[in-house]
């Protein structure tokens, strides 16, 4: 079973998700944590006993490999959160999938004819250069606002949705 069942005549036009920057900083942080025990061991050997017994070496290696395994899995949990937190834009609607952790998600849909306004907010130098911003859709439906924080290239996403809304309104007339 897929999370999105497409209607007849419906096709996916594009996807909008969060910027890779957050994933990158998360990866750098985990890389730092992965190296931390190695640095600590270097300091320990430099200032402490020069001789390290085999038992300590194997035990250290054992716990370090478990540490790396935990970090590896943590990174992919974060990657899953990044990858599945997405707006799926089709020629009929925008599906907002808001993934929070492994077992929590909120899936909401807005039909193109219900979209009233689309706004983009970009604040900061890094955000401007990397094209990171918040995109918000105002709707006429019961849930009157959809937003995606730290979206990748929000201006492009706005243009894509806006042109689909225009086409949809032309087809209605």
């Amino acid at each position, binding site marked *: *079973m*897929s*999370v*999105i069942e497409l209607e007849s005549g419906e096709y*996916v036009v594009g*996807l909008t998700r969060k910027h890779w920057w957050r994933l990158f900083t998360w990866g750098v942080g985990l890389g730092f944590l992965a190296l931390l025990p190695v640095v600590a061991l270097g300091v320990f050997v430099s200032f402490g006993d020069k001789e390290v017994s*085999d*038992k300590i070496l*194997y*035990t250290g*290696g*054992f716990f370090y*490999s*478990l540490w*790396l*395994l*935990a970090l*590896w*899995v943590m990174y*992919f*949990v974060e*990657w*899953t959160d990044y*990858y*599945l937190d*997405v707006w*799926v834009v089709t020629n009929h609607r925008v599906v907002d999938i808001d993934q929070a952790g*492994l*077992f929590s998600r909120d899936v909401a849909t807005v039909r193109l004819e219900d979209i009233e306004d689309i706004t983009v907010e970009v604040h900061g130098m890094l955000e401007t250069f990397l094209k990171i911003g918040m995109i918000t859709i105002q709707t006429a439906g019961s849930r009157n606002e959809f937003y995606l924080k730290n979206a990748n290239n929000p201006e492009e996403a706005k243009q894509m949705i806006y042109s689909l809304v225009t086409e949809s309104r032309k087809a209605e007339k």
Partner: protein
Amino acid sequence: MFTNIENLFNYVWVVYLVFMIVIIFIVLALLYHWGKYAQIKQVKFRFTQVVFLLGVVFLSMLSFAFFIKI
């Protein structure tokens, strides 16, 4: 004191077992999610799945190799 620490090493396998059960649970949860959402972009999912699983298998084998040496 030192003897007590030595004794603790006899129970490392309990820590290892619990840790690996948690890891296997998370791995299965991730694969379930990736499979469920695979319709969106299958190719990238498959590539990521392979890289992820290779990493998990390699690090699990590495930890097991150290474990049997303790």
